[in-house]
C-alpha cells in the first residue's frame, strides 16, 4: 500500500468515527466499563497475592514443649525439628525468656517476675520458621507427631483462607476477562456493522472500481481499533488514578486488620504498566476481531 493511500484510508476511518459519534461514544463507554471491571479484578488479585506473600514472610509456627522436659530430651527434639523438611530455622524460648518478655510488656502495671518467681506458668517453646507458607500444614503435622510436644500453634485457618481467596480471585478474573472480552467483541461488531451499513453505497462502488478487500476493510479497522485504544487510555487513566488515591488512603488510615497484612497496597509504580499494556492489548485485539467479524459478509459483492 502506498503511503498516501494509507493516510487517506486512515483519515477515512477517523472520519467514520466522527460521523457516527453517538455510536462511537456508546461503544467506547461499554468498552471502558469492561476494562474498568477487568482492571479492578486484576488489582484485587495482585493485592491478594501481595498479602499472601506478606503472610508467607510471617510464616512461623510455635511448638510448646511438655513441662519438665529434661535437657537431653529437649536437645533431641531440637535436633529432630531442625532436620525436618520445610523448616528454615528454629528459635528456642525458655520459660524464663517468655516470662521476661511478658513482664516487659506489662511492666507499668505489675512486676510479673516477682509474682511468678517460683511458679513460672509459661512453657518452653520453639518458634519454627518455614521455608514456604504452603509447607505449614505438613510441618504442623510432623511437629505434632514428635514426643514431648504439648501443643502446636499455627495460623493455619488464616493461611488457608487466603490461599483459597487467592484461587477464587484468580479464576474469577479469568472468567470476567472472558465474558467481558466477548461483550466487547459484540459491541464493536455492532458499531462497525452500523458504519458499514451507512457506507454500503461506498463499499459497493469500491468493489466495482476494483478496490481490494484490504483497502475496503482498512478504514473500519482504524475506526474499531481507535475506539478500543481510546477506551484503553480512558480506562487506564481512571484505574491508575483511582488506585493511586486508594493506595494513599489505605496507607494513611491503618487499622488492626490492615496492619495484619502489611499496612499498604502494592505501589502503583509496580503495576501501572501492566494495567496499561493489558488494556491496550485488550482494546486492540478484541476490536480487531469485532471489526473483522462484522465486515466479512459485506465484502462478498
Amino acid at each position, binding site marked *: 500500500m502506498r503511503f498516501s493511500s494509507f493516510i487517506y484510508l486512515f483519515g477515512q476511518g477517523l472520519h467514520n468515527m466522527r460521523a457516527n459519534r453517538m455510536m462511537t461514544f456508546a461503544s467506547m463507554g461499554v468498552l471502558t466499563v469492561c476494562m474498568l471491571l477487568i482492571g479492578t479484578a486484576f488489582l484485587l488479585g495482585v493485592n491478594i497475592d501481595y498479602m499472601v506473600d506478606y503472610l508467607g514472610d510471617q510464616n512461623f509456627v510455635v511448638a510448646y514443649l511438655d513441662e519438665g522436659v529434661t535437657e537431653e530430651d529437649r536437645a533431641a527434639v531440637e535436633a529432630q525439628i531442625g532436620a525436618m523438611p520445610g523448616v528454615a530455622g528454629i528459635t528456642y524460648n525458655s520459660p524464663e525468656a517468655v516470662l521476661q518478655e511478658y513482664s516487659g510488656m506489662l511492666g507499668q502495671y505489675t512486676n510479673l517476675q516477682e509474682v511468678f518467681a517460683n511458679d513460672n506458668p509459661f512453657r518452653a517453646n520453639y518458634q519454627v520458621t518455614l521455608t514456604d507458607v504452603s509447607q505449614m500444614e505438613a510441618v504442623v503435622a510432623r511437629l505434632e507427631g514428635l514426643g514431648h510436644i504439648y501443643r502446636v500453634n499455627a495460623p493455619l485457618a488464616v493461611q488457608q483462607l487466603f490461599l483459597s481467596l487467592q484461587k477464587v480471585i484468580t479464576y474469577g478474573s479469568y472468567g470476567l476477562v472472558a465474558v467481558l472480552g466477548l461483550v466487547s467483541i459484540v459491541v464493536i461488531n455492532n458499531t462497525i456493522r452500523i458504519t458499514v451499513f451507512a457506507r454500503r*453505497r461506498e463499499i459497493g462502488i469500491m468493489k466495482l472500481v476494483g478496490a481490494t478487500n484490504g483497502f475496503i476493510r482498512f478504514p473500519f479497522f482504524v475506526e474499531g481499533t481507535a475506539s478500543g485504544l481510546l477506551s484503553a487510555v480512558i480506562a487506564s487513566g481512571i484505574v491508575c488514578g483511582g488506585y493511586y488515591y486508594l493506595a494513599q488512603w489505605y496507607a494513611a488510615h491503618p487499622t488492626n486488620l490492615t496492619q495484619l497484612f502489611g499496612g499498604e497496597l502494592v505501589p502503583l509504580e509496580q503495576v501501572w504498566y501492566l494495567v496499561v499494556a493489558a488494556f491496550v492489548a485488550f482494546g486492540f485485539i478484541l476490536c480487531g476481531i469485532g471489526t473483522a467479524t462484522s465486515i466479512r459478509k459485506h465484502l462478498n459483492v
Partner: protein
Amino acid sequence: MIEFQHVYKTYETHSDENVALQDISLKINEGEFVFVRGHSGAGKSTFLKLMLMEERPDKGRGKIFLNGQDLTKLRRRKIPYMRRKLGVVFQDFRLIPTMTVYENVAFAMRVTNISNKVIRNRVPYVLSLVGLEDKMDRLPDELSGGEQQRVAVARALAHGPKVIIADEPTGNIDPELSMDIMQLFEAINKVHITVVVVTHEHELVNSLAARYGNRVITLAHGRIAADTADPEVARRYLANGGQPVPELSYSV
C-alpha cells in the same frame, strides 16, 4: 477481448431453480461497440454480472475470457485487479452524494492505490473529456441526470480501462439527453476503447446502430436470439425452437 464459451447460469433457490442464461457463446473484439439488448428477464443483468465477476457461471458449464484470461478460474483475491481493467457505468449513476464531482472521481482512484500526483492530473482531464471541467466542485445533486451520468462515465474512464461496460446508462435520463450520453460512448469508442452497452431501449439502439453501424446482440429467454455480426446465430436460434422476437428483429 471478451469471450463467452457455452456459458450457463442458473440461480438456485431452496425450492426451485431459475435458468437465467443457457449456452451463451459470443466473442467481442477489441475496439468494438456492442449493444446487448433484450426484454427484462432476458438475461441482460446476468450477462453483465458474469462479466463483472459478481456472479460465476454454473460449475463446469462454460468459460468466460477477458484478455485471454479465464475468469472462471480466477481466484477470488485476484478479482479486484481484474475489475480495474473494466470501467462500469450504471443506470442509477452510483455517485456518492456527500462528495463533490471531483471527489467522486478521485475516490475511485484513491481506493485502488493510485498516487495523489496521478489523481491530481488525471481527474480534471477525464472530467474535461465528458465536458464537466467547470462543475468539478459541485455535488451530484446539483447536477442534471445527464450530467451525473457523465460524472459516472468520467469515473469509469479514470483508470484508463480497455473496456467500458454500461448497464442501462440512459434509464434515468430524460429521453432528449439519452442521445448525448450514447454519443459520448461512441466518442469513447473512437479512441479504441471497447464499449458494451446493455439496454432495453430498442428504438435508441436501432437509430444509433443504423447511424454508426454498431453490433447488436439480442438476448431472449436466456439465449442469444440474434447477433448482427453473425446472421447464422438467429437462424440457429429459430431452428432450435427459439421464439421469434418481432420488435427486436433488426436487419443490417
